[in-house]
Every structure is written in C-alpha cells, then in structure tokens.
C-alpha cells in the first residue's frame, strides 16, 4: 500500500521530525481541556516544561524551572497589567 505513494508526497514527510507536530497539537488540546479545571499556572507549567524538554539532566532542570518562571511571569502580566482573568483551577482553595 505504501508503495503506491508517489515520490513528491513522500518528500513531504521523510527526513523530518513530523511526529513532533501531532504531539504538540495533542498537548495543546489537553491544555485547552484541562485549563478551567486545573488552572492556568499548573497547566502552563506542564505545557512549557514539555515543550522546553530536551536531552541531558541540565536541560531537563532548566525546562522545569524555566517553565515555572514563564508561567508565573505571564500570569502576573496578564492578570495585573492587561486585566485578563486567567483561571486559578486547583489553586483556588
């Protein structure tokens, strides 16, 4: 069945890390669905850590800490400066 595919079609996918695309889109979908329930800070932290993720212990550490900083700073900017209400989710005690 795969042999039936013409070369230009194959050129669209070979040599590319196209699997990253559905993973990223799935992460976005998960983010959208969990946002109201889990809250902006935790969701963004996880999503950013996932996207920053790379090889090596140092890179992983940077990903986790960097993602936390990004989510807190963006939360403060949007909440205080732009007055956008972002859901608190689980953190709303």
């Amino acid at each position, binding site marked *: 069945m795969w042999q039936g595919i013409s070369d230009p079609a194959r050129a669209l996918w070979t040599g590319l890390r196209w699997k990253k*695309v559905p993973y990223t889109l799935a992460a976005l979908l998960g983010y959208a669905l969990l946002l109201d329930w889990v809250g902006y800070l935790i969701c963004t932290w996880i999503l950013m850590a996932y996207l920053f993720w790379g090889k090596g212990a140092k890179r992983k550490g940077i990903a986790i800490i960097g993602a936390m900083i990004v989510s807190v700073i963006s939360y403060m900017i949007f909440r205080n400066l732009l007055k956008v209400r972002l859901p608190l989710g689980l953190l709303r005690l």
Partner: protein
Amino acid sequence: MMDITQHILYGFSVALTPENLFFCFLGAFLGTLIGVLPGLGPAASIALLLPITFKIPPTAAIIMLAGIYYGAMYGGSTTSILVNIPGEAASVVTCFDGHQMAKQGRAGPALGIAAFGSFIAGTFGTIMIMLLAPLLVSVGLKFGPTELVGLIFLGLVMVVFFSAESLLKGLMMAVIGLILGTVGLDPIYGTERLTFGTTTLMGGVEIIAVVMGLFGISEVLVNLEQILKHEIYKGRIKGLLPNKKDWKDSVGPITRGTFLGFFLGLIPGGGTIIPTFMDYAMEKKLSKHPERFGTGVIEGVAGPETTNNAASSGCFVPLLTLGLPTNVIMAMMLGALMIHGVTPGPLLVKQHPDVFWGVIASMYIGNIVLIILNLPLIRMWVTILKIPYAILFPLIILFCILGAYSVNQEYIDIITLMIFGGVGYLMRKLKYEGGPLVLGFILGPMLEERLRQSLLISHGDFSIFLSRPISLGFLLFTMALLISSPLIALLKKRFKGIYGSSGIT
C-alpha cells in the same frame, strides 16, 4: 494644497500627543522584534495584540498596529542578512544578496541600505497615501451597497488571484473562509447557521484564534519538524553607513522599488511578498551585470527592502478610503477599528479625522523611530537573534494561547487555535494559502450585509447588480480575472524561470 498642509498638521497634533507617541514607539519596537524573530510574522502578532487594543482608544490602537506592520518590514531584513533565514516572509528575497554581502564582511552596508531604503520608501509611501486617499474617498462616497457588493467581490477574487499559487486552491480557501464566516446567528433574522445545535458555535468562530492558528502555530509546527541550523554571522558589524558607490548603485533600485511597491500594495492581494520578488526580477533585468545578482550586490538588497516597505504603506489606502482590506494584516486592522465602532470607508475622514490623519502622521514618526531602532541599536537585535529556537518556540505557542484565550476567556478558543494550527500546518505543506481563507472570513459577513441591503432595495431582484454601471463594471472585471487565469498561470511559469536561474534553492 493648503488643505493637505492643514490636514497633516492636524494629523501631527494627534500623533504627537504623549499617548499616541508612546504607542507609535511601542508598535515600531514590537514590529522590529517580530520582524527579527523568525517564526512569528506580522499577521499572527497583530492578531495576538488585537485583544489588548480593546482597552486603548482607536487612534492609538491603529497607530500601534500599523507600527508593527511596517516595523516588521524593517526588522525582517536583519535576520535575512545575518542568518540567511527570512525573519519575515517579505524578506525572503533579501537573503539572496544580503547574506552573501554579510559573508563578504559587508553586513554593515547591507543593513544600512536596507534601513535607509525602508525609510525612504516609508516616508514616500506616507506622502502618497496623503495625496491619493482624498481622491479615492471622493470615488468611494458615490458607492451604495450594490456597488460595494461588486467591489468586495472583486477584492476577494483579486486576493485569490494574486496570493495563491493555483487559482483553484485559492478559490477553495476563499470559499471555506466564506462558509466559516457564516457560522453563528444570521445577522437579520437571528436563525442559527452551522452551529450543529451547540451554543459554543452560536457566537461564530473566533477570527483571532483562526489567524493565530493559521499564521502563528502552523509556522512553529513547520519549523519544529525541521532540523534548523542557524548560521549566525559571527563577525563584528562595522560601518553601517553605505559608502558613495553603494549609494550610487542603490539610487535606482530604491526609486523603482518605492513606486513598484506602493502601487502593487494598492492592489488587493498584492501584499508585501510578491512585490519583492517582482522587484528583484526587475532589478536583475535592468542591471548591467545581472550575472552578479545572488553573489552579494547591494542592488539586490536595496530594491526588495524598499519595495516591501512601500507596499506596506500602499496596503493602507484601500482600507482607509474604501473600507476594503486587501490582505490578512489589513483585515486585522479592520477588526480592530470595528471593535471600537469605527467603520473604515469613505466616511472615515469626515467622521473620525483623528484616526485618519493621526495614523498617517504617525507613519512619518514611526519611520524615524525605526531608523533609530534599526541602525544605532542593531546590536541589540543581533543579541536577540542568538536566542535558540528551542527556547523561542514554546514562548511563541504560549503567546498564541494567551492571545486566543484573552479575547473571550473561553477555553474553546484554544481548541480553535489548535485546530487551525494543525490545518494551517497541512496547508503550508501542501501549498494552500491562508490569506484568501481569512479574507473570505472577514469579507463574508460584510458582503452578505451589503448583498441583502441591495436585494431589499430591488425587492429581491438580482439584476440590480447588472443594471448599475459601477457594480456591473466590477463584476465584469472579476469575471475577466477568473477567465484569464490559465493565461496568467503560463506567465507565472515564465517568471519562475527567471528566479530559478538565479541560483535560488
């Protein structure tokens, strides 16, 4: 003549208020940043900032958004020259000669001529807007709903015609856009259309999320799957001022680029990308040494960089005078104005002279700000270029999420963003243009409203569009465009032959 001086002085009095000056600077700054960073173009950025402009007055909002647009044209050249990756689609052509110049240690003059050329084009373009706009306004005032139907129809077909590689693909996109534009409640009777019984779709599909998906997320996804190698120019940038010979070589290209860009910018669908390719081809033909194009000649930087800036000013004319957006960015501007209850069109000059003249005057100021941002401060942008993409792309995704979410504070808009990100990714791979889709989406409801008004006048008789000479003219021209497409396709193939031989891969 007296009139114009008075108007422009009034414009400056609006643009020079501290608030507007601040937003002009902010727009120019953000525009340069967006232009420098590959992977976030002006369309997605303007969509991103649209929700923020809800909170500021309309004049300041448009001044800022306009600044982003022409600022991106300046910034795009920096990345093209130093990294050989277009920071922005309208700077693709600048890579050919610009990066070669950088390799030969002439990055300074290349950046310099790009900035000066952009400045000249931007200033000239602004003057042209001022002179041309009142003429078009007087024409536009004669248009009733029937004529506007013809005009919008023609505009949409022209966008398809000029921006899409294949007319069929472009038409498909435009029709999908028109269908998406009908989702929600019927504007006159309030009947549900294409909502599939859900309340979430009753308010329609969120255009901001669509644009950010199609132009922001999809770009990230395409970059993500490729293993990009950034080759940043390592040498020191010295001598930003082009020398006498450089200027002598660039005078012609700058002059021609300014005119070509501005007039192509006026045409719906002309945009900023196609004119740069046309300008490069033209300069190559006119040159005494066409064989040296692609090896780092300054004409190959000066021409296209001037053209894209001139085109970005030209684009404003149809929007401000006729209310017709001619590309995705102008469609976003239209959205920003409409949110503030300002309807762009021939009545804009009378009803909101502060918006009209203030925005035009701000363009002069913006161009001065940009030349300062882009020449003395060039090293700052080079530092920004060194941020690795692995850090950049999650942030771009986060900006898009926040932009989509902050419009209505609904998670459904993030899902829209995701869907159109995926669709846009496939569209990019299969060479479908997003422009006609967005224009169809934006123009659809406008077209529908005017169409129904016309039909009310004629008591449901469609021949009204043929009995009015102006609307008949527009429709005939539209038909001629559609019929002539096979002919143009042939010419385009010829055109490609010219690019192909210049060693562009």
